[in-house]
């Protein structure tokens, strides 16, 4: 399966997932995506930027510093819910900085999403 096919299969498997993007957080580049309806590249770039902010930005650094398992390791998963929707982010372990970024329904089951996402991410990072 190609990366796009993997993303499509993931989105179809996880209920309430509208957008899934595979991104390189270090460069802010969306490498592949699958969406349930047309989404502009600008929106995907914004999602990727939000992922960087939530997982590697100053907020995540503060979380790592205060409650991180180690000073160098930040959180691997983040969810940001605003009045505009719910966005989830899962990143691979350092030093690789690939991540999966999702836009999901507020009723999505987070545990199921994160478990599936980690498996997919490990597979995708291995392929890249």
């Amino acid at each position, binding site marked *: 399966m190609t990366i796009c096919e993997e993303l499509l299969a993931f989105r179809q498997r996880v209920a309430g997932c509208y957008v899934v993007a595979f991104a390189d957080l270090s460069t802010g580049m969306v490498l592949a995506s699958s969406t349930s309806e047309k989404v502009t590249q600008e929106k995907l770039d914004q999602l990727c930027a939000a992922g960087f902010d939530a997982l590697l930005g100053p907020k995540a650094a503060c979380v790592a510093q205060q*409650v991180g398992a180690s000073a160098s390791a930040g959180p691997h998963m983040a*969810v940001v819910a605003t009045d505009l929707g719910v966005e989830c982010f899962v990143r691979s372990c350092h030093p690789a900085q690939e991540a999966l970024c999702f836009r999901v329904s507020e009723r999505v089951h987070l545990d199921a999403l994160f478990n599936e996402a980690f498996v997919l991410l490990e597979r995708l990072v291995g392929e890249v």
Partner: protein
Amino acid sequence: MAHNRTDDTSRFMNAIAAFSAAPEEITVYGRLIGTQSVSFLDAILAEINETVLRRVLHFTTPDAVSLSVDVSERRVHRLHALPCALREKYDYLLGRNLTVQDAAAIVEIAQALAQTGSALYVRASLPDKTDALGFDGLSVGDVLAAKENATNASDVPVQFGNAISQAQKYAQSLSVQSGKTSLVRFGDAASCDALEEVSNAQAEDGATKPFVRLWQGGLVAEHALLIAMMDGFSVAMFLPAEHVQEQFTLLHRSVLQATGPVER
């Protein structure tokens, strides 16, 4: 020449009188439109909504607290008089053309009026000046929307309270703040301090819209950190991963959906 009614006119007038509602009580203050059992704001809005031709409506309570508004085509265009207690705060509204941005102030004024008396009366008069009112003004819908927002804002502490009482069952530590002031701390002091540090960092980010944020994976004891912020209040909790879904859903519903429909 003296005007004599014909029999037809009398019958017509009698027919109209028969269709009329029961006579309303008229006092020296005007017509009674609100009592303690009726929302004064609703009564004021109903009166505005029934005023098509330009009139100045004077809303008065028995304590002589009054509010005068210039109304035309079911829209409030100007304020001419305010209750004394509110003059200092809302003096800037007097005499100028009102816009949608003034709706929240109108709600607050009407609610303040409601607290001053047990009855509300209205009387109408023609405006002193008949200058054009322009196209601004507030519709009843604008005021109702502002009222809805005001209601949501006042519910925030209650919603946070519900979330906190649920969280205490599972959270290892929890902190509730108003701005940077601690309101509730639960769990060990060091963990609460850490939660407050993270909360304050979120606030310093300049975020003004309500949000819920969750971090998980790579944290102490494989726990998760959940933060919700709304209207200057924040709740931060450090909890086992297995309870994240429940707490996230609760905070999301209580905090975010209070502000309106969640869109995709």
